[in-house]
């Protein structure tokens, strides 16, 4: 059971983190380098999951993913109570951290350097991958670590959209809740220790990135 939950957490977190990095980087770039009508509204909307109660986020996700929602109606995709839904919930709560961090990091790169690359023959993707991203790498990495850590610890929204099915959707945070309910303190202590260690290590790594 512990092993299953650990694997499930790793799978969910890995998928969510990849999505967080790709989408968060793209949104960070847009937020840092463009101006358009309604930008601050969109930016706030991306950030809102940070401060909403997880149950509210979970409820919105149910509306989006559940029966009657657009995913089922338009694409006939049933993801509720699967690990896909858990990954999606983790993605939504982890994304704001990545967007904020990569936006700040990219805004800190001097646009003249990007222009220099353009005059030296770089295409726009070339400019991004050879100049902008390498120079913003610390902030981007920090955002990825924080977003990934947040995804790993996701509980409330996951419980609402993916349930707590051992072996199918039960991640480590859900297992801890379960174990405490069952007064299985051995499992709870072990899992709490693992989670605390991971959280501590992530923050320590982010601080190291900031210092160097």
């Amino acid at each position, binding site marked *: 059971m512990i092993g299953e939950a650990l694997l499930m957490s790793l799978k969910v977190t890995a998928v969510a983190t990849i999505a967080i990095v790709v989408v968060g980087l793209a949104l960070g770039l847009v937020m840092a380098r463009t101006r358009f009508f309604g930008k601050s509204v969109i930016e706030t909307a991306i950030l809102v999951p940070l401060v909403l109660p997880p149950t509210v986020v979970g409820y919105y996700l149910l509306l989006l993913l559940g029966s009657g929602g657009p995913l089922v109606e338009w694409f006939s995709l049933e993801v509720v109570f699967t690990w896909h839904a858990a990954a999606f919930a983790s993605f939504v709560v982890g994304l704001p951290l990545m967007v904020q961090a990569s936006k700040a990091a990219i805004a800190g790169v*001097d646009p*003249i*350097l990007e*222009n*220099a*690359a*353009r*005059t*030296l*023959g*770089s*295409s726009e993707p070339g400019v991004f991958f*050879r*100049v902008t991203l*390498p*120079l913003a790498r610390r902030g981007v990495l920090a955002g990825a670590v924080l977003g990934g850590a947040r995804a790993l610890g996701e509980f409330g929204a996951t419980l609402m959209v993916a349930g707590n099915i051992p072996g199918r959707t039960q991640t480590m945070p859900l297992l801890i809740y379960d174990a405490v309910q069952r007064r299985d303190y051995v499992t709870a202590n072990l899992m709490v220790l693992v989670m605390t260690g991971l959280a501590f290590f992530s923050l320590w790594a982010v601080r190291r990135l900031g210092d160097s």
Partner: protein
Amino acid sequence: MTPRLRLDIEKCYDSFELHVELEVGSEIMVLFGPSGAGKTTTLQAISGLLSPDAGEIEFDGEVFFRRSRPGDRVDLPARHRGVGYVFQGYALFPHLTALENVAFPLRGHKGRGKVEAAELLESMRLQHLAHRYPREMSGGQQQRVALARALAARPGILLLDEPFSAVDRPMRERLQRDLRRLQAELNLVVLCVTHNLEDAFGVGHRLAVVQDGRVQQVGRVDEVLRRPRDLRAAEVVGVSNVFHALVVEASADGLVLDWDGLRLEAPPQHAEVGERVPVYIRPEDIKVLYPDRRVGEALRTNRVTGTVVDHHATGSVASLRVDLSNGREVEVRFPEYTYTPLAISTGGALDLCLRRESIVLLTGPDVAVPPAAV
């Protein structure tokens, strides 16, 4: 000089309107003017980093940009223009070494990129810097690496924005020599922005005076400096020593002017007797006469005494402000090595000569006299 780069562009901003027409051949053209005149904007338009509102930019028959009427629009992306750009502050990539910076545009060449970059660094005597990061180099070193990087992509046009502003004098002279040599060797069209007269003299074949978003005058460097076409050009190149005088005599031999009681002789120029005309003399062409030496033939006319109001020496040039006997103030500049023997002090008296040959009437097409210059 056959023009290779032609531009005629317009760009409107809230408080500023740029309209630049220029033709440049295989030469070093200096864009000269005060900050905010539109020099950098012009470079950006040529490189493709900025789109003008209207106009055309053409190089060796290839259209970089054209927008004359709706529907007809060419705007070649910067990466396809082959324009080398040395930015103000150099814009070296801080995460790459000198060698990697120079190899940046050569990436498509596979393994040869690094080899070519190393050769280029060597040809510019920079090989010892190859593995240093920009933060480990001096300003002058960074600048030469930036120049090597701009040339690595084998551009037809080279743009330099204030390339000499942050380097000391010996390095500046070396860079100017390098630039003239490279221009000739590679047959480049070079545009160089500066607001320093000495740099313009040191590097440029021709000079374009840019002010308020317009090219006021184009010509050989010495020609523009000696004969500004009008008051606006004079303000840019000389700033001070523009004054108004009455034409007393005008003949084929020359002019006689009355500048508020001071009689001045000037070479023959187009003017009517009785007319009040704007007159210009470069600060370098007002000679300080040594009290204890005989005065040469050329300096016998246009003598005047004055009182030193202000003086300072910076680097190689000494600069004075002198209150003349007619109550007007002029700026006088001369080499620093004559400064000490003259023992100049504020309040002291001086004998001056306003060289006859250097007195220029500013009678361009649109002479408007701002009160400050009178």
